[in-house]
């Protein structure tokens, strides 16, 4: 036995010198699929950038037109409309998701009977396809749909859910309904990571439940909050399915990705669509970088 170990050590040190090449070769081979995938992403970034300076409809040859697409972009009302729609959406959903998700997580953290059942139920909508959700909500949002019938049954007046002014908010409400459970589960994980010692110590010092929440829980959960903030904003900027299926009138629910889709696959203006994609990517990157820089100020990794 001991001999084997000694041999192993000897062989190990001898192998250390040779370990570089055979591993590297294998790594190269085994990573081929990944290279293709990653390569595609980086290639797309470059290709998209180049394409954004052309005018191309796939059928005929591409034509170099310099920054013309970007100039059109700036003057394009629809681009600004899409951006403002997304902004409205963000303003409504992000704070609501975080606050409601957090409160829900606190509830789900309680030792109650059947708590697992509740956790699953709230999470279920996230697992459903956007087609199922958007179509069902679309019918419910109709002028004589289920929601209005309920409101009128309660003696309230009906709401124009999908009209010009409310369509985006209605979609926001729907995504809130879908995502609340998922956010809550993320917060739940964060909550369960807070060491109970802090609570014990504070209780000895006479802290109230509210103070505990404010001074311990919330600060220590900020890493999770940060993760949610970053990922939800990136997702919101790329929203497509919901607005494609549940379009509001007069571009009130147009999003950038939807506009890109229209230009690329319906209008066949590939150059312009690429320019739009690029602008979107830049915006997302800027927003994310800003968030990363600012996190030092409010995210506590330790008390």
């Amino acid at each position, binding site marked *: 036995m001991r001999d084997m170990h000694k041999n192993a050590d000897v062989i190990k040190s001898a*192998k250390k010198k040779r*370990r570089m090449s055979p591993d*590297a070769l*294998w*790594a*190269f081979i*085994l*990573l081929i*699929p*990944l290279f*293709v*995938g990653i390569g*595609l*992403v980086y*290639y*797309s*970034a470059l*290709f*998209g950038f180049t394409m954004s300076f052309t005018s191309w409809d796939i059928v005929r040859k591409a034509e170099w037109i310099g920054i013309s697409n970007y100039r059109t972009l700036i003057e394009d009302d629809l681009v600004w409309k899409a951006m403002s729609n997304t902004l409205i959406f963000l303003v409504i959903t992000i704070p609501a998701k975080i606050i409601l998700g957090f409160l*829900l997580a606190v*509830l789900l953290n309680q030792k*109650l009977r059947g708590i697992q059942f509740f956790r*699953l*139920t*709230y*999470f*279920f909508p996230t*697992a459903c*396809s*956007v*087609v199922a959700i958007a*179509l*069902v*909500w679309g*019918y*419910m949002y109709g002028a004589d749909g289920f929601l209005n*019938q309920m409101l009128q*049954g309660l003696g309230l007046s009906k709401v124009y859910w999908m009209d010009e002014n409310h369509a985006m908010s209605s979609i926001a409400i729907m995504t809130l*309904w879908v995502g609340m459970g998922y956010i809550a*589960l*993320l*917060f*739940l*994980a964060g909550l369960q*990571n807070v060491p109970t010692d802090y609570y014990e110590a504070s209780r000895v010092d006479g802290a109230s439940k509210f103070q505990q929440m404010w001074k311990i829980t919330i600060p220590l959960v900020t*890493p*999770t909050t940060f*993760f949610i903030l970053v990922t939800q904003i990136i997702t919101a900027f790329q929203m*497509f*399915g919901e607005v*494609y299926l549940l379009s509001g009138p007069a571009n009130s629910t147009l999003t950038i990705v939807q506009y*890109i*889709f229209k230009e*690329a*696959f319906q209008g066949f203006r*590939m150059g312009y669509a690429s320019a739009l*994609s690029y602008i979107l*990517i830049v915006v*997302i990157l800027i927003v*994310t970088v800003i968030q990363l820089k600012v996190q030092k100020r409010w995210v506590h990794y330790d008390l």
Partner: protein
Amino acid sequence: METINEKHSLKLLYFMILLGLGLIIVLPFLWLLLSSFKSSYEIISGSNFIPKNWTWDNYVKVVTEVPMLSFFRNSVFVTVLATVGGVFASAMSAFVFAKLHFKGRDTLFAMVLIVMMIPSVVTMIPLFIIMKSAGLMNSLWALILPSWTGSAFGVFFLRQHMMSVPDALYESAKLEGCSPFRIFISIFLPLVKASLATLAVLNFIAHWNDLLNPLIYLNSPEKMTITVGISYFRGQYVTNYPVVLAGIFLSLIPTAAVFLFAQKYLTKGMLISGLK
């Protein structure tokens, strides 16, 4: 200090709130199910929640007039192949990053991480052009092949778990002359089954529910998956939308089944990614 009674009533309050919220979550699904048994006349005129005259018409219609079954078949085909291939590819790459040593490994891994940050919209158009040149338009393979490169998230996720497997296992297997590939297949894959399952479930859900890619690549109804299929065929039932509701309900059954089956893996996955 709270009394036992106060504690109990607080718990009751929490329970009631959770129940109320739960009802809000469940209500649209309940409406969906009940309304799928209503005739179009009832939907238009009635304001009743529960159907007065239950009818199976909508389900019959949606299965005979709409190629629902071929939608299902296509969705199953794409989802299963894409998930299996994708998880395998991610696992293989994760293994390389976790256990193999080679120059530039960490830089390469950083590049993988960066990809996670890049919005997916960047590949939408270039991938379309590649697929078109490869003659894969209107083919289900256009939906399957891209995922066979693995995903940045998958690689990151699985690498965590693989790193926790003792190096000694890898080393001693190598000493016995096994190639890294064999070590991967015979030793590591079985050891990280739990994470594989979690990733598989997440991928399954993502592929099953994918709308954008089928929308771009699938042109003829017999190739369509459930997501685009339903969205295209609702136009046939403009004055009779309970039929669409029946179709939607059918499409949710597999989702629910997988969801129940995978609940353990999903919540675990949430915990792991939440820890980031």
